[in-house]
């Protein structure tokens, strides 16, 4: 067991953003965090990244609390990518990805051939080699997001925390990033915790899934089991059905839209 959260609680002012959050992460596991807006997904990720001081409980890596690990040592274990990060205008893709090596080179050590090779690998696996010298401001939203992911994987951490890495991307880029996440976990044994809004993408890529509602974990387990609980409909206040798509694959959630009922009603009349 690599990363473990036990009874992690975070409060902002008087409001409880995350309540008694439990999670264990095995090497090479992909974990999806789903839940409505404001359900505590980002808070959970930030607490796991040691960026928030929990008011109760703790997150530990190999038995050591994350907020007790010095930042640079922690960055070699764990990479965290927030939602919609911003970079200086004139920074290029390659310069951004280089920052991912800070955890390894520190303030003074010069970049070794290994570091350069890792930067090249990170650019290549995100399909950015050709764009390496372009300033970030000239890129499309999808390219920029891939550049940030590239910087995070250049960190070569065993744990990768991604906060909605596919939001604001078109479906093509979404699939690319989901595939990249899967490859990282299977080919390089990276453990990934990812907050994500697309339920079907979450179910298809993850090994385990956590469903949060108002800061509380209402489900933690196999994505296939989630389909049978009926929790999706109550937590997200929607109606829909799980449709099997392939044997051994988690089913797809087909959401019912209000206007479809309306249209059907009109046709029936």
């Amino acid at each position, binding site marked *: 067991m690599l990363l473990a959260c036990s009874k992690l609680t975070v409060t902002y002012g008087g409001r409880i953003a995350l309540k008694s959050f439990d999670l264990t992460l095995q090497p090479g596991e992909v974990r999806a965090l789903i839940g409505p807006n404001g359900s505590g997904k980002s808070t959970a990720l*930030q607490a796991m*990244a*040691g*960026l928030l001081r929990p008011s109760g409980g703790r997150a530990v890596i190999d038995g050591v609390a994350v907020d007790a690990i*010095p*930042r*640079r040592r*922690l*960055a*070699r274990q*764990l*990479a*965290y*990518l*927030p939602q919609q*990060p*911003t*970079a*200086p*205008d*004139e*920074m*290029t893709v*390659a*310069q951004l990805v280089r*920052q*991912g090596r*800070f*955890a390894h*080179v*520190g*303030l*003074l050590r010069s*970049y070794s*051939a290994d570091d*350069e*090779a890792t*930067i*090249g690998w990170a*650019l290549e696996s995100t399909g950015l*080699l*050709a764009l*390496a*010298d372009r*300033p970030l*401001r000239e890129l499309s939203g999808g390219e920029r997001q891939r550049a940030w992911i590239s*910087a995070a994987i250049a*960190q070569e951490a065993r744990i990768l925390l991604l906060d909605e890495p596919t939001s604001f991307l078109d479906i093509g880029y979404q699939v690319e990033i989901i595939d990249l996440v899967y490859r990282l976990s299977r080919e390089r044994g990276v453990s990934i915790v990812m907050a994500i809004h697309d339920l079907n993408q979450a179910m298809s890529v993850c090994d385990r899934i956590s469903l949060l509602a108002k800061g509380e974990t209402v489900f933690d387990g196999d994505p296939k089991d989630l389909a049978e609980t009926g929790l999706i409909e109550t937590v997200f206040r929607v109606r829909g059905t799980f449709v099997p798509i392939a044997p051994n694959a988690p089913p797809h959630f087909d959401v019912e839209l209000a206007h479809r009922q309306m249209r059907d009603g009109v046709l029936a009349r």
Partner: protein
Amino acid sequence: MTPVPGIARNRRGLSSLPALAGLLLLTLGLSVFLGVADLSVSDIMSVLAGNGSPEAQSIILDIRLPRIVTGGLAGIHFAVAGLILQTITRNPLADPSIMGVSQGATLSVTLFLLFSVFLRDPGTTARITEMPLEWLPAVGMVGGLIAGAAVYALAFRRDLGPLRITLCGIAIGAVLHAIAIGLIAGWGSARIEVLLEWLSGSLYARSWEHALFLAPFTIAGLLALLPIRRALDLLQFEAPVARSFGLPYRQHFSFALFLSCGLAASAVGAVGPIVFVGLIVPHLARALAGAKTQLLLPLTVTLGAITITSGDLIGRLVSQADEIPIGAVTAVCGVPLLIALLRRTP
């Protein structure tokens, strides 16, 4: 250096540094040769060779050279302080005044001149020549540092974010400035002339003592920058991003802030609050460096020295004996430059 294919080199950035170094030498040379006192080129050459008339020697060695060196060093201080502040606060309009440094220095110099009269015999009227002018740089610097520390302490009690720092700096700076102006207004004496001259930012009568006062800070400040280059790169990001890249954000943010305050406060002490240099020079350097960010610091240093030296030269030449203070020249030239730079920004 990078084995990644497709990395093009930015030629503009590479060629601009030698060109600027040439320009710096040219400005320095012109500043030595041109001035209010009309010295012939041959006189000046013989002084530089170690001979020359006593009068020419005194003008070159005791007046022009220390003035040029002091100005150049102060220019480097303001420019580098501005670059650091703009980088770490992610605020393109940041300059040393957002840390309250100039205003703190102004107040401390005002108070010092106001009370220094009591340190002398009560019977004598204090004339400018009798005032303890040699203390002004140190007093100004201490005042600037105290103001910077106050801003830091106020912001530190909260989250120490760039926005918090800026707001605290503006608030404290405004209060200190108001107190200083109030003191000056209700005071009216011969000392006001010294104060006004210092306030407008001037290189008039700057001696080797001023240059020697600044030099240790210049050397220490620039040396301290070298090991924190990567930290400064990371401080350009928001705190959560910098921290997850592995940077202990608070320590490095505080150190960079301390460094820029030290550079700015020592320069303000020596030459008064010269405005716009700390704001404009980093922008010029950035425009020249382009994607070659490793050139940003050398370009800022060179341009900082050029700006003040040439600004002072213009001030001396335009109005001859009644020279225009450098602070006024940089402000007048700085505004159009700032507008031009802003038009370039997308």
